């Protein structure tokens, strides 16, 4: 296998560490950006801090981290402020005001960086895409160990973000869910908002060198958005987002090395592949999520359709035999009457036979005693509904059948009893057919 031939923990290990820390730090905060419907503000801040970096560089004329951090964080918070001001005083909606603010600041940043590029190696491309592959080259020594600077910085930021989310978990939950309650009970929603913005800016700066300004947005938004589909409480959502971020980072690096080789190319950028992996996880969640997943919804609808077809089949058998005990009840006749497709009908018949609701006699289908019992309940529900709807909802007797046909599948014993009481124990439906009486047990008494 190619992968392990060129694998070096010294290089790949540190790249993965940087990727995981960056993804985890971002998605910790991203949960709240997604829940506050401020995903775009994360995007805006990560772009807008560019002039902050450039100005900090001009002033300090060094690439040392501290002025860079300060400059970026200040501009990051200003972005949030400007956006709010432009929205309020310019009378435009939040999206438009964000668009104005961050493109202007980003452009200003680009101009400044291009200006600066003559005398320094502050590279615009690097700011956009990052250089995670070079992580291992620039190390600092901590307690005798050589650690890449990016990993150290991202590690510290991850710890800060984790502390922030843990300590202010309940405050963040409240102010994201109901900002006015938060403010009126003394947890200033505005304060938490700007704290969050400061940390978003800090995380964005720290992630710049590794994944660049565009891809850090993916890490802010995509794992939390995926987790949102999979969890229905906040703490699990955060855990899932952290897990997904880790998976995306690790698989991103592995795939960046592997996938291009399948097509005969050299390995591609890890940061890009991390974002692609996160996107793929999101796509999987859309398909397979247990509650909102496309597949689950499809299966659920299919199962309901089959359940209804099974109901219709036994009810039809009941009616046919009620009218004429000798009526033809071979599968093909039934299928024609039910307008069912071949596959579904076979499946439903097999299920009904396995449950011993019907049996086959000389090519004819017959209801068994338990089958007859559930059929009688269905027909009773149907006719009670018809009676009820014609008496109380003023629905024409000719049209009432279709409505009752839908409702009968969702009517249980207690609802039938209520219907019975409401229709004053009617014995016939509006078409003159008898309403079967309620019986609790399928056995012991003779039918028909």
């Amino acid at each position, binding site marked *: 296998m190619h992968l392990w031939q060129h694998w070096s923990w010294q290089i790949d290990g540190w790249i993965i560490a940087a990727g995981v820390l960056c993804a985890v730090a971002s998605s910790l905060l991203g949960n709240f950006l997604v829940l506050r419907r401020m995903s775009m503000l994360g995007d805006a801040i990560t772009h807008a801090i560019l002039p902050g970096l450039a100005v900090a560089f001009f002033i300090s004329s060094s690439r040392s981290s501290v002025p860079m951090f300060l400059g970026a964080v200040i501009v990051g918070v200003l972005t949030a402020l400007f956006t709010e001001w432009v929205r309020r005083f310019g009378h435009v909606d939040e999206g438009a005001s964000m668009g104005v603010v961050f493109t202007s600041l980003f452009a200003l940043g680009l101009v400044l960086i291009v200006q600066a590029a003559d005398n320094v190696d502050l590279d615009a491309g690097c700011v956009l895409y990052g250089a995670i592959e070079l992580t291992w080259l620039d190390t600092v020594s901590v307690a005798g160990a050589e650690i890449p600077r990016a990993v150290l910085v991202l590690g510290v930021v991850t710890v800060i973000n984790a502390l922030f989310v843990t300590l202010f978990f309940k405050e963040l*939950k409240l102010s994201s869910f109901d900002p*006015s309650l938060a403010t009126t009970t003394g947890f200033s929603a505005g304060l938490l908002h700007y704290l969050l913005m400061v940390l978003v800016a800090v995380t964005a700066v720290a992630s710049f060198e590794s994944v660049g300004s565009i891809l850090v947005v993916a890490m802010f938004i995509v794992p939390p958005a995926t987790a949102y589909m999979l969890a229905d409480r906040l703490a699990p959502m955060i855990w899932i987002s952290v897990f997904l971020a880790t998976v995306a980072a690790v698989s991103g690096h592995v795939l960046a090395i592997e996938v291009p080789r399948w097509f005969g190319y050299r390995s591609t950028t890890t940061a890009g592949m991390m974002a692609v992996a996160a996107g793929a996880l999101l796509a999987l969640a859309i398909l397979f999520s247990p509650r909102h997943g496309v597949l689950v919804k499809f299966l659920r609808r299919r199962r309901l359709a089959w359940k209804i077809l099974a109901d219709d089949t036994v009810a039809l058998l009941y009616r046919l035999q009620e009218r004429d005990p000798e009526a033809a009840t071979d599968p093909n006749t039934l299928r024609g009457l039910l307008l069912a497709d071949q596959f579904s009908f076979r499946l439903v018949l097999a299920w009904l036979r396995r449950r011993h609701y019907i049996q086959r006699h000389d090519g004819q289908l017959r209801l068994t005693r338990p089958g007859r019992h559930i059929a009688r309940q269905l027909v009773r529900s149907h006719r009670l509904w018809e009676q009820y709807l014609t008496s109380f909802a003023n629905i024409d007797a000719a049209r009432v059948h279709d409505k009752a046909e839908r409702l009968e599948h969702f009517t249980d014993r207690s609802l039938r009893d209520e219907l019975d009481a409401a229709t004053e124990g009617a014995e016939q439906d509006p078409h003159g057919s008898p309403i079967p009486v309620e019986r609790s047990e399928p056995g012991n008494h003779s039918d028909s």
Partner: protein
Amino acid sequence: MSSDPAAATLPLSVHDLTVAYDRKPVLWDVGFDVPPGSLVGVVGPNGAGKSTLLQAVMDLLSPASGRIEVFGAPYRKMRHRVGYVPQRESVDWDFPVDALDVVTMGLYRRIGWCLPVRQKHRDLAIEALDRVGIADLARRQISQLSGGQQQRTFLARALVQDADLYLMDEPFAAVDAATERAIIDILREMKNRNKTSVVIHHDLQSVPEYFDYVVLLNMRIVAHGPVAETFTPENLQKTYGGRLTLLDEVAEAMRRRERSL
């Protein structure tokens, strides 16, 4: 005023309150007192400034002028004595929390910054959910609750706050009959414990049955007082008979003037 001992016992007292959005007045010179232990209905047409009034009481917006006292002091000193039930539509019901989480939020102020929610808080929340009759739904994600159950969750959240003054923004809007009954039972029970509720209400027919004090609002106070004396056809005619068109006109004139400068 605040040296007056009677004023300190008034749950809510509003003086000369004017609120304007973008120079357009929403509340104009509003003033009224709410007697302790009363069940107050705030009634008025759409756009009369009813929600704005509650928001102003809770310092959620800054009024152009006027003064509001809660138990004789500014709101921020008395927030522990005020419970708020916002409009149901004001929050995102797809938020990943369950009913119990939402109710516990009413206890956050008492728990304090950075400290976690503990078992005794959850017990209190369950108790409140039980009082509104949905303790069995405590662990249900809030989007899975019906409209009435969501409203009850909000009510339970206000109950755990154990406040003396409750401000409710249309708790009866679009709820089923059983929930309406449950809410009014709780309101009466609170009244019996000498707690005050100020409730924005839309259904005029039920006002005499539900409330004992009424504030008729349409940008300004049309009338306020005990229901029997205040809730009269003439006052309702004045409340719903139309906006103060002259005030609108003068506001428009002010805007034009500003633009021409």
